[in-house]
């Protein structure tokens, strides 16, 4: 990849930002995180920055400061909307930016997921994506009461039992992605014919059963929703290790990874490419985006000092699966360039604070990239897929 290829930059939206104390430093009241207006403002701001897409986080239990179990903290943001519906609410209020909600596959119905995301694609004119999420905690399972999931923690994560559970859950996730994708293709684009001479509205030969039978569920199809404008909305997944890399390699178009630095990025990219080979991926290779938590100020010192203030308010230093960067826009551009040299295709930036850092991305980072000829100066008219260099795939069922 030439160093002058334009950068792809996405932003991950979640609550008040990715630092748990950020809500105490934003200017908006806490209630606003549960209003449509707040989310429309955030996404419009990202759209003013010409960003590729935004993601919306979600999970099937309340947030926790502990990765594996619930907590009782009352000093951090708790509560979230259903992310697909949040993205749908934002869609008519925006025009260009991609909308990528998180939706879980472990407990939800693949049929509903498929029609929900297809509808988001119709509503947004081809801007929909999906961040696939696996639910691996007993807390989430108990909300559905249909299966028992053993508790995993930091110590048991590498045990045989835990890895077996993860392999099963990610296997089911791969099935769910496959069903969702088949349902998207189950209407050919010209299935509606409105033939007055024969009285037929549909050409039933252009509607296809998906006939999926897996060990966890079976779905007959076809979908009730016509094929989305992108054919296949952009499928994405966050992955930190081999099993999720393979899920992404099997089912996704784009994977978010969490390298610590450029050297680590080289190793992660290698691991992702190996996973692609192992699962026999065909077609376009996975787009690999690095997830980075960012605190941006005019100078690195100011960024460090703001993060330190946040840490002080939370009572602990920020812990994240992704690298945490405190920098100026110029410094961040240098860091991103290093990741690009290592084979990273794009970036999903997680703003430390939803106000200060989203604003800094839009008014600081983007102009820095533009001045180096590394970022678009206006949106084209294409879909989210086309923005990422992915074509509308041929319908698997079309003759």
């Amino acid at each position: 990849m030439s160093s002058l290829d334009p950068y792809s930059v996405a932003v991950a939206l979640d609550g008040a930002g990715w630092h748990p104390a950020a809500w105490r430093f934003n200017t908006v009241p806490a209630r606003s995180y549960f209003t449509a207006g707040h989310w429309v403002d955030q996404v419009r701001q990202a759209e003013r920055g010409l960003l590729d897409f935004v993601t919306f986080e979600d999970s099937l239990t309340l947030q926790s400061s502990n990765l594996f179990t619930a907590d009782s903290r009352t000093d951090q943001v708790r509560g979230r909307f259903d992310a697909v519906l949040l993205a749908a609410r934002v869609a008519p209020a925006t025009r260009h930016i991609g909308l990528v909600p998180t939706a879980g596959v472990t407990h939800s119905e693949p049929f509903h997921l498929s029609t929900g995301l297809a509808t988001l694609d119709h509503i947004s004119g081809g801007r929909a994506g999906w961040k696939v999420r696996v639910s691996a905690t007993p807390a989430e399972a108990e909300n559905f009461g249909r299966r028992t999931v053993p508790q995993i923690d930091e110590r048991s994560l590498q045990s045989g039992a835990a890895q077996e559970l993860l392999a099963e859950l990610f296997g089911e996730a791969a099935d769910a992605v496959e069903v969702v994708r088949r349902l998207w293709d189950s209407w050919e684009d010209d299935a509606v014919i409105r033939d007055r001479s024969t009285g037929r509205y549909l050409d039933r030969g252009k509607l296809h059963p998906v006939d999926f039978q897996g060990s966890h569920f079976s779905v007959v199809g076809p979908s009730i929703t016509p094929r989305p404008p992108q054919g296949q909305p952009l499928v994405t997944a966050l992955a930190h290790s081999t099993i999720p890399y393979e899920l992404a390699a099997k089912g996704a178009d784009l994977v978010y990874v969490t390298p610590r630095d450029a050297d680590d990025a080289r190793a992660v990219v290698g691991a992702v490419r190996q996973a692609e080979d192992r699962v026999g991926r065909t077609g376009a290779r996975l787009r690999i985006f690095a997830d980075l938590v960012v605190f941006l100020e005019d100078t690195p010192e100011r960024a460090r000092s703001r993060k330190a203030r946040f840490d002080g308010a939370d009572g602990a230093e920020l812990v994240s699966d992704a690298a945490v960067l405190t920098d100026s826009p110029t410094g961040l551009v240098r860091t991103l360039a290093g990741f690009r040299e290592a084979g990273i295709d794009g970036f999903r930036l997680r703003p430390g604070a939803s106000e200060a850092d989203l604003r800094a991305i839009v008014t600081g980072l983007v102009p820095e990239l533009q001045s180096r000829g590394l970022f678009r100066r206006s949106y084209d008219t294409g879909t989210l897929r086309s923005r990422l260099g992915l074509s509308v795939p041929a319908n698997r069922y079309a003759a």
Partner: protein
Amino acid sequence: MTYSRRTGFPKKQVHLAAGFPGVNHWTVWSDPRSGSQTDFASFVHLAETAERGKFDFFFLAEGLRLREHLGRLHDLDVAGRPNTLTVLAALAAVTERIGLVGTLSSTFNEPYDLARQLATVDHLSDGRAGWNVVTSSDAFHGANFRRGGYLDKADRYTRAAEFVAASRRLWDSWSADALVGDQPTGAFLSDPDIGRYTFGGEHFDIAGRFTVPRSPQGHPVLVQAGDSAEGRDFAARTVDVVFSAHAELEPARSFYADVTRRVVAAGRNPDSVLVLPGAGFVLGDSTSDARDRAREVALAQVGPETARAQLEQVWGAELPDLDPDGPVPAPPTSHDTTIRLGQARHAIDPLAQARRWYDRATTEGLTVRELVIAETTRHTFVGTAAEVAGQIDHAVQTEAADGYILSGHITPTGLDEFVDTVVPELQDRGVFRTEYEGTTLRDHLGLGAPTATTLPTDRTAVSRPTVVGATA
């Protein structure tokens, strides 16, 4: 309170909802004015039109599987639906006041998922969400879902009742004052256990933390359309709006009286439940013009092949040699219920229904197509705008209905003429709002704050006080 100009007595207010034209033969796609059945722009047009007409709510049905006829996809009617909840969330962006009600299955969903989604739509619409609870449970629809057709028909209402009770438990799991958001002290929440709930019944044994703060309406408005005795009892105990299949005056009155009786027997105030039949309409410049137009619409709704397919469905048999413009054949002696799949059927005794159709055709001398037109077209209101307004007003004042869920036969412009001409007539009569007075759907329907329901089957019932002030 509005008073009748004629009698000086108070008049009941009419409630109106706009149903998006359905996936069935009532929706005429052959008309040049017919637009897309699935493009978002069509949904926007109808929702904006209904809001311009100050309707109480916009109403969406749900699709779980494409319909089949004679073992193949049914290809004569409009088909295809976007996801109900996703469309409602997006419509919240382009409307301000009108309620947004979606049909969602209590069989092929789980309470935690669906309660989150409905609470989300209620937040994103500032208190305009509603849920039409449907209980379809057959294996045909189940083939698209994780558990298949696992639910016995007899259990569908017990599951629905538990589903609603569990959803209410989830909606009540955040108190209205849970969000503190005090930045200096760092108190985001008032309660370390916020969102914690348990529900244990025959169908659901669930526990955990709910993620959505209490929504503007507390609970979205609940709607239900079941017509069986069980369905009516479930509605009487549980919901805010009954979507009735009985629009003609006399059957509507007896349905209204029956539901009222059941609501009182369930210990509820009859004013807390509205009965809204589904209805169609055809308007004209004069009475005879309206009748002529109704005739044209009926012929478009029931083409020759649709007439054949409808008779095959009621006869429970394939009728390949049938002449749609010829006489109705003798009624069947056996009935195959799998002729048409994926469509609600009301006939409890299909052979008796076929016999009744045959007798009517014989008595009135109807061809197959004429019979299907007479039996299946749903032109509840036919006349000039003033006449239709009078018919609606009369029905509402005489306890046939509290209003109607109206569907036009053209997508998406089929309601335009009604809003432009009948709504002003209703407003002149003093029976329909000229401006929205409240902001939430509960406000439009005149409903109070929601109450929790507790079921005898629930092993985890908590005597938590109902949260009040939820719409503040």
